[in-house]
């Protein structure tokens, strides 16, 4: 063995048998009072935190999610793609006053901590064993409401975010990200959500700190609690000492282009993207219809396009994204047989403007409803839907709300073949925005 492995072996052995100064943060907990009977609840805490509590005691896990309205590219110019995610991850990676960084704390509990960023929101979600739910609420609210943004935390976050950006650059998400510039003249979607390794590495600590302090205020927070968790954990929500209660952030402006601008870029995944401006979330019937269309046409294996493609080597994705205003409909085509797939996609979309037969429609709707429900099985999935629809301004329209008798699925049940065809005609019959991603001219990976 060389010297380095020998030293490593000694270090590992020492770490195993010498008492480490780990786990100190666990001692900060104090028991909260659980409610005798968990019940759904929605409200606003005195600190201004909006909360959504949807307990399910049969679940083996609990999800604690903090959602914030905040532009992904930061407040003000210059736009910094990836900033919101970077800031949320930096806080999770920074050691707070009480001791252990949140990410490490959740990992020690055997839980999972994730950060997800969208054009105008950012979410931090912890999936933890139920007996750690109260600690998770305490730690997350304490860490984010009075954020510590350290250089070490930023370094961790930049490394994670850079790797994530590379990973995403090899998937259809990169094509979707590029579609934003074709669809919008400004705003976070125009500037892109993923960012680049170089761009993320260039974001300075001061900007991250300023973003975190503004975005992660209690009054801008939506706390979502799902799974095996009860109302007692709300007693552990931190407040921000000395902070005046302020209004939550406003929705960021985004200007759709009157005429979509074609975009051609270099990327690690060659492919084509098609995009359309769709209805705002408030136009619930149309939004539901386009969710249905996306599923009926683009569901893997059983969707119209998947069946038409057969054994061709191509990946086609399609989705409607229910943003506050406007929503967007995105299609990506990538793979060796992408050129052959485009006419099939165009035909499927054209056919969708004509009403389906009632029998085919019923089958597609049944499959659509099932797939949507199956995406809300875990506490983290359920927290995502509540967080998303609340931050986008339509909490009652969240598919998880009320189950199959809630507003979303009632609308799905009232869809008709002609209503769906009309929605397609209205939103998807115009020429789409088109992006083309091509491999970099020089050999290598685009960053």
């Amino acid at each position, binding site marked *: 063995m060389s010297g380095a492995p020998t030293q490593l072996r000694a270090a590992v052995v020492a770490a195993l048998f010498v008492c480490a100064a780990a786990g100190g943060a666990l001692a900060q907990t104090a028991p909260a009072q659980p409610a005798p009977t968990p019940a759904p609840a929605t409200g606003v805490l005195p600190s201004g935190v909006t909360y959504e509590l949807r307990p399910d005691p049969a679940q083996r896990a609990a999800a604690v999610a903090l959602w914030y309205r905040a532009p992904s590219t930061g407040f003000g110019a210059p736009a910094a793609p990836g900033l919101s995610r970077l800031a949320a991850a930096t806080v999770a990676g920074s050691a707070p006053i009480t001791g252990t960084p949140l990410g490490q704390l959740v990992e020690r509990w055997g839980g999972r901590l994730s950060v997800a960023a969208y054009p105008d929101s950012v979410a931090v979600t912890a999936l933890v064993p139920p007996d750690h739910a109260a600690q998770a609420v305490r730690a997350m609210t304490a860490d984010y409401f009075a954020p510590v943004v350290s250089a070490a935390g930023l370094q961790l976050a930049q490394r994670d975010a850079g790797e994530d950006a590379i990973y995403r650059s090899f998937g259809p998400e990169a094509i979707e990200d590029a579609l934003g510039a074709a669809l919008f003249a400004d705003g976070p979607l125009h500037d892109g959500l993923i960012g680049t390794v170089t761009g993320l590495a260039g974001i300075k600590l001061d900007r991250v700190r300023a973003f975190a302090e503004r975005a992660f205020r209690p009054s801008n927070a939506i706390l979502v609690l799902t799974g095996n968790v009860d109302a007692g954990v709300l007693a552990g929500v931190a407040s921000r000492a000395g902070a005046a209660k302020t209004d939550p952030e406003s929705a960021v402006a985004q200007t759709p282009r009157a005429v979509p601008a074609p975009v051609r870029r270099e990327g690690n995944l060659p492919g084509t993207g098609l995009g359309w401006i769709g209805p705002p979330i408030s136009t619930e019937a149309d939004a539901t219809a386009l969710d249905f269309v996306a599923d009926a046409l683009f569901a893997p294996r*059983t969707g119209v396009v998947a069946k038409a493609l057969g054994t061709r080597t191509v990946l086609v994705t399609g989705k409607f994204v229910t943003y506050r205003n406007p929503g967007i409909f995105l299609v990506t085509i990538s793979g060796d047989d992408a050129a052959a797939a485009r006419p099939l996609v165009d035909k499927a979309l054209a056919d969708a403007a004509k009403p389906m037969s009632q029998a085919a429609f019923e089958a597609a709707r*049944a499959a659509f409803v099932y797939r949507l429900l199956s995406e809300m099985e875990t506490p983290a999935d359920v927290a995502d839907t509540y967080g998303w629809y609340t931050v986008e301004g339509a909490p009652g329209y969240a598919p998880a709300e009320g189950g199959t008798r809630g507003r979303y699925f009632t609308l799905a049940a009232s869809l008709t073949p002609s209503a769906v065809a009309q929605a397609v005609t209205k939103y998807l019959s115009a020429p789409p925005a088109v992006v083309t991603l091509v491999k970099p001219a020089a050999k290598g990976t685009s960053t």
Partner: protein
Amino acid sequence: MIRPLAAVLASIALTGPAAAAAPRTEVVDVGGARAYVSADDAAPLAGVGLVVRAGVDRQTTSQNGLAALVAESILHTPAGASPAVPPTAGAAAAGATAQTMPLSDAVDALGASIGYAVGTDSVRFYLEGTPEAIAATAPLVARALAAPSFDATTLAAARAALAERFGDEDSDPRLVGRAMLRASYYRGGAGLPPLGNAGALAALTPADAKAFYDRWYVRGSAAVAAVGRTGQATDAASRALAAALPAGTAPAATVAVHAPAAQPKRIVTHRDVAAPYVMLGFAAPALGDRDFPAALVMRSLLSSVLDRPTATTLPPAFRAVGTIYGYDTAPAQMIVWINGARIDAETGLTAVDAVVKAAAAKPVSATVLSRFKESARGEWTLESVSLDERARAIANAVTRGLDPDVADDVRAAIGRVTAADVQRVAKKYFQRFDVALVMPRSAGS
């Protein structure tokens, strides 16, 4: 495994108040087979899993892939003319009619899903949907289970579906390495890859499939697990699926292994991967073994060795070291993988070796023990979150003859693991291993 009182009190103080306990699983008879019901009234969906003792260990070495081919053929059995099955737009686009629509597509068209997983000693079918969709689809699934099609057309469709899955598995070096280490560890059919391979599948005939089905698809050895929004629909589905299998009991099978030798066996393959993966296969205790909780603590310890601090939880592909624990088979196998893109392979190997040797040499410190027991308990808890995972956990338990809620007992038992337990398990299981190397095609051997 008695823990000092002080440690018990400390653990209570550290973990805070316990949330409401999850309901226990009920056991009901469904006409000759047992059904295990774990209700979750807040879930909009229900799942019904059927476990049949027809896994890869039922294959002979010349029947590689037969267990998967039979299961896949059941999903491709034409659903038949039924007023319940509307023609989907997707199926119409592919030229299918209600008569020719495969079972899986028919189930999809009725708002549910059907899938299967082939294990070492069993195959598990899983039907999921709203209670209404379960009620509509269970009779179709039962019909296909009772009279599956093994004609040439169905087998061809099944082979094509399996070929897609080979492609997916072949692109993940961890799954490639797992297959290599399984083949090295398990003897006979049990060591064959769960899905077979294209060459072997091409040689299997309709008669092979029919004979395998006739011999192993029997009710007496089967079990049903219903989870989620259970009730009349899942009760009826459980009965229908159990009744679809012919009466009879399959003889028990014993899985034999080649225990790793003092000198590690090295197996090398080349794939289209960016960096090498080094994978170590250890013998390990199975679910239900008294050493299992301590092995979960070892798993947690090994999973975290050398992983750098991160801001959030990394997906497995981004980690330097990870584990795959096949505890659903007795004897079990635990695989530790080292991602060569994240860490120098020799460094990783040295670190893992150091951990297992050190853990066997003397008891880990109280701090380390506490830290990794906590991680192990949480990781174990989060293994059974989705409905499918919950059904799988019950199936894993009952097919080993254990209480369906043994997962809860394991969670509690992890809390009672001592440093001596970890040391004993490290000595007993983790000192010998086989090595699989999954190398980039461009690399030498």
